[in-house]
């Protein structure tokens, strides 16, 4: 089954370790993530200013081009892209005046009113593959891996675009169970990583990361599972800062959920690009026998 797929710019550069294991895993599950032929930036951050329509143009143009191809659903993988695209889509559905202005300006030859359904890959796994069916496809159960599902903000907020219960999300935990890992619930799993605030105040990066990492560690997690390249950047850089500041602070591996999916489906660790990860997952994965024997994997921790 072919799914129209929107990767996002970061997944083609810094976060290839999020995309490539996803594409390979979905193929193993019988789905083709079919990258849409012409796409531009998702807009990166959804603009909250009511009259700032120019920053809705990028996400809406992507959606129009998906509609032009006759597709009705668009799969995203980056949590930020999901957020921008889904919110812009909502605007096109709900606000007639702005919709008309945007359609007129975007000038793609067809009008758009939010017909495309924007979904996240986790929703595809939950709703189209199903946790039970997924667990049956697992070849290398991630037994014993205590992984804390970290949602961040953009999969769940605002409520209108959430892919799961806003207050008590389980989708990432359910995913971890399906691939045989032991999810570690922790109270800060939906706390903000600092997002783009760290651009204007880079000194705060460690302070945003501290409560999240401390909470996950104190609940027994040995790795944090992510869906978003910006969370990865902020928490990865943040824990490096914390290790410098605070003697004895233990850095933990940050892993994308797609990397765990690929490992569990028995795919080569090569598709996971662990060399792009923060907090070197090599020793942990070896310890849990999650790296197939005889596979040479280049693992360099957290250099960006």
């Amino acid at each position, binding site marked *: 089954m072919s799914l129209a797929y929107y*990767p996002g*710019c970061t997944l*083609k*550069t810094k976060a290839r370790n999020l995309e490539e294991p996803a594409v390979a895993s979905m193929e193993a599950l019988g789905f083709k993530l079919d990258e849409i032929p*012409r*796409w*531009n*930036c998702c*807009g990166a951050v959804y603009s909250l200013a009511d009259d700032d329509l*120019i*920053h809705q*143009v*990028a996400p809406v*143009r*992507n959606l129009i081009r998906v509609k032009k191809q006759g597709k009705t659903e668009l799969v995203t993988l980056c949590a930020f892209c999901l957020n921008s695209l889904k919110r812009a889509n909502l605007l096109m559905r709900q606000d007639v005046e702005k919709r008309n202005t945007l359609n007129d*300006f*975007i*000038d793609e030859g067809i009008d758009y009113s939010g017909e495309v359904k924007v979904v996240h890959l986790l929703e595809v796994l939950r709703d189209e593959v199903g946790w039970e069916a997924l667990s049956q496809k697992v070849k290398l159960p991630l037994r014993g891996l205590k992984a804390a599902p970290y949602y961040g903000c953009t999969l769940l907020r605002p409520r209108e675009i959430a892919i799961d219960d806003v207050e008590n999300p389980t989708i990432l935990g359910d995913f971890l169970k399906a691939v045989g890992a032991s999810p570690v619930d922790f109270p800060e799993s939906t706390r903000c990583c600092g997002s783009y605030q760290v651009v204007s105040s880079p000194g705060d990066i460690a302070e945003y990361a501290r409560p999240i990492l401390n909470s996950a560690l104190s609940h027994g997690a040995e790795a944090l599972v992510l869906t978003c390249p910006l969370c990865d950047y902020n928490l990865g850089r943040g824990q490096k800062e914390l290790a410098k500041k605070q003697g004895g602070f233990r850095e933990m591996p940050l892993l994308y959920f797609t990397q765990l999916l690929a490992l569990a489906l028995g795919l080569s660790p090569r598709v996971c690009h662990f060399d792009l990860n923060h907090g070197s997952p090599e020793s942990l994965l070896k310890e849990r026998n999650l790296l197939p024997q005889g596979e040479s994997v280049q693992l360099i921790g957290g250099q960006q």
Partner: protein
Amino acid sequence: MSAKQTKKKSATRAVKPRTKKPAATAVKEEKKIAAKLIPIYIMGKRYEVPEGLTIMKAMEYAGYILIRGCGCRGGTCGACGTVYRKPGDYKLQVALACQKTVEPDMYIAQIPFFPANRATYEFAGLTAAPEEVFKLYPELFRCVACNSCTKACPQGIEVMDAVSALKQGNIAGAAQLSFDCIQCGLCTSRCFGELAQYHMFQLARRTYGARIVPRAEHLAEMVKAVNEGRYDRFLDELKQAKEDELKKVYQEREVEPMAAGEDWKPKDTRYL
């Protein structure tokens, strides 16, 4: 460079006499011109020019002496970017003045130059990493996908798609999409994010050519063979040949057929 300048000067000379012609000659010449006169507006002023002229020739007909905004006159140098509108249509149109023929009631302005900063870099030290482009042109990320650049391209390049390719770290994609760019700068003149697209694309094409496309190994081998003197003997033979002999060799030479395949070889392989 010098050929271009000469061309420009000759264009200038061609225009001058026309503007100074006595009335009688002008009338006489007018009879000779079969073409209908049509009205156009150059920078807001109305002129009647023969239909069928390019915008550039029409401007010269109207008395303009072009010392900028005029280069190759063949649609490849990018010096004569032009914008125009027609009554009743809000759409801004673009063209190269040397290529587009005039249409009635066009309102024309040439944009021979548009300020755009080109980053300074030592190319030898650059890799093919997308971050090199990001560092040299950080304004790349100001693109809001308004697509005005694409609409402004007289070459029909999908400019915004090429900008997107750069943002996605796809230098090969940007180089291929922008291959027909003649650096006229019209995209840059219309950019909401104040990008200098054509300079970025030039960097992408340089990187693509020098760092991404595989090297032509056979060329290096051939240059080495030439330098090592493999062909010196044959050249010496030719140099010493008498005129008649030389003519004979030339006339009897074997020419590669037009539709020769890649594995074509001459009958005489002594020189390969």
